[in-house]
């Protein structure tokens, strides 16, 4: 370990320290949320600053197993933003339910460390460890409302299936490692390039390893048919955490895909392309179709997040078919999706501030009249999720579709499936709007007072959702650079 190595991993190290600091602060002032919020958010700001500083120069540390490049920087910032927003949305939901904020923030930041590690890893072992560090806190967060049957039920489903898939993933990883003889991403790619060049064949062992890894990763991103955990875990989890789960681990898993499939297994993309195409098609379709029938908004958003996985996979497929735009679109989609989906869940969480309020569609009846601002913001997020301009969601969708069209062939067909799905999706997103604006409220409950932090977070999500839709240039540059770093 050298000093340069330490500098390179400074953001990650800082994040770990922030996590520890939060728990320490909680020990110092037990049960107080303000210090926790302050330390965690300030810490995250520091982490973000460090990310920007270290990201200025591409670097590689720990013998090439840890890399800082444009992709790392982009993803790290995204993770910090996701976690920051989640922490902002947390207190309003947790406090009425007597749930502590400290453990929430700590565990969340640990999960962020995992995601950041994935983004920076160029080593199979580190990738696996990063994945575990990201998902294990996820299981805990899902069960965070430990006295609630739904929360724990979701958590145990998530945990059991997640561990199952981790084992599967690891089994595949072992085979690939055994066959390529190295854990370094670059080394794996080099070893496999012979197969891509046609000078060697894809051995059955490698194929099986690929299959196991694909399955494991598909599970993490909630691709059909490995998506079963998603609705139950999302519905059960405390709502701000659902918001986090729907974006954090998903984007993290996509980061894993970028490092693993795009970089390490990039030479084999001809082989995994057809699989991704099929996965994308059925993921989009099933997610949307089942979402149509949901009456619980959280569950509906869970299925919709499955569908969004499908759209992102379209970008991946386009990349595999030879278009860099696919990768850029995937990254753009990830960023846009993060903010709009977090925003949508934040509104759901805000409504559930009063303990006992369900996330059923009825909760939204007349919201546009009771709390117009929340109603309008929710409409904006839902429109963005639908893909209506001028929102980030629209541009993201257009981006992956453009890439798919460019890729041609079967991938272009995915573009058509994607837009038909988007049209179907409009039905269930707009149904929420129907409830908010076109139905009368069921109860004449007093409007809730929401915390300032929630408003700040919502404002941030809103601004980003709009800005990425109207002036996406900065984000475009960022995803372009990030994609070039690995493409």
């Amino acid at each position, binding site marked *: 370990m050298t000093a340069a190595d330490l500098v390179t991993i400074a953001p990650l190290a800082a994040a770990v320290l922030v996590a520890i600091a939060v728990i320490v602060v909680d020990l110092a002032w037990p049960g107080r949320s303000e210090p926790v919020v302050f330390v965690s958010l300030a810490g995250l700001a520091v982490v973000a600053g460090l990310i920007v500083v270290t990201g200025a120069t591409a670097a590689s540390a720990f013998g090439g197993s840890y890399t800082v490049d444009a992709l790392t920087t982009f993803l790290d910032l995204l993770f910090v933003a996701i976690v920051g927003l989640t922490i902002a949305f947390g207190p309003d939901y947790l406090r009425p339910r007597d749930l502590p904020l400290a453990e929430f923030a700590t565990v969340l930041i640990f999960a962020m460390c995992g995601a950041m590690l994935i983004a920076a890893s160029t080593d199979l072992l580190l990738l696996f460890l990063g994945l*575990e560090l990201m998902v294990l806190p996820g299981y805990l967060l899902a069960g965070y409302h430990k006295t609630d049957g739904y929360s724990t039920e979701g958590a145990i489903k998530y945990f059991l299936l997640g561990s199952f898939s981790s084992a599967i993933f*690891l*089994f595949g990883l072992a*085979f690939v490692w055994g066959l390529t003889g190295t854990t370094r991403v670059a080394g794996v790619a080099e070893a496999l390039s012979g197969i891509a060049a046609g000078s060697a064949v894809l051995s059955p062992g490698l194929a099986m390893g690929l299959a196991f890894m694909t399955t494991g990763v598909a599970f993490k991103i909630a691709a059909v048919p490995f998506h079963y955990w998603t609705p139950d875990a999302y519905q059960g989890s405390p709502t701000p955490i659902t918001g986090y789960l729907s974006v954090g681990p998903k984007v993290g898993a996509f980061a894993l895909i970028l490092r693993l499939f795009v970089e390490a297994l990039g030479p084999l993309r001809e082989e995994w392309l057809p699989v991704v195409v099929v996965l994308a098609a059925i993921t989009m379709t099933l997610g949307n179709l089942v979402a149509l029938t949901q009456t619980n908004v959280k569950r509906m958003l869970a299925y919709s997040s499955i569908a969004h996985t499908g759209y992102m996979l379209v970008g991946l497929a386009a990349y595999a078919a030879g278009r860099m735009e696919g990768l850029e679109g995937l990254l753009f989609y990830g960023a846009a999706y993060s903010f709009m989906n977090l925003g949508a869940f934040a509104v759901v969480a805000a409504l559930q501030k009063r303990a006992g309020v369900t996330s059923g569609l009825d909760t939204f009846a007349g919201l546009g009249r009771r709390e117009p601002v929340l109603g309008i913001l929710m409409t904006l997020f839902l429109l963005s999720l639908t893909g209506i301009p001028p929102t980030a969601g629209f541009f993201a969708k257009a981006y992956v579709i453009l890439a798919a069209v460019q890729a041609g062939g079967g991938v272009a067909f995915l573009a058509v499936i994607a837009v038909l799905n988007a049209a179907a999706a409009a039905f269930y997103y707009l149904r929420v709007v129907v409830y908010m604006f076109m139905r009368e409220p069921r109860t004449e409950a007093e409007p809730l007072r929401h915390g300032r932090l929630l408003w700040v977070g919502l404002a941030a999500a809103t601004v980003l959702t709009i800005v990425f839709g109207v002036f996406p240039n900065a984000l475009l540059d960022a995803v372009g650079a990030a994609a070039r770093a690995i493409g």
Partner: protein
Amino acid sequence: MIANSLDAYLILSGLLFAIGTFGFLARRNAISMLMSIELMLNAVNLAIVAFGAFVAGLAENGSVIAIMVIAVAAAEATVGLAIVIAIFRNRRTPLVDEYDAMRR
């Protein structure tokens, strides 16, 4: 001979993995399922050690990775058992197939 062939180790690993899978799919008790997962992780470890033993240049790496996997398994077990205990408090049963309040 047998003990000297990579195939034997890997097949053994595969069998263990399959047994773990079966247990995971078939058992009702959450802890049984957890144990099945441990079996699967051990199967992976077996494969890793086998590769380390037989593929030139991987020996030490294999061992290190295997140890890491053991540590991960420990962490997983911690988390898993914590969740099992939490849900047991809520539901008073360790039988996972009765946790179906959320569906469709």
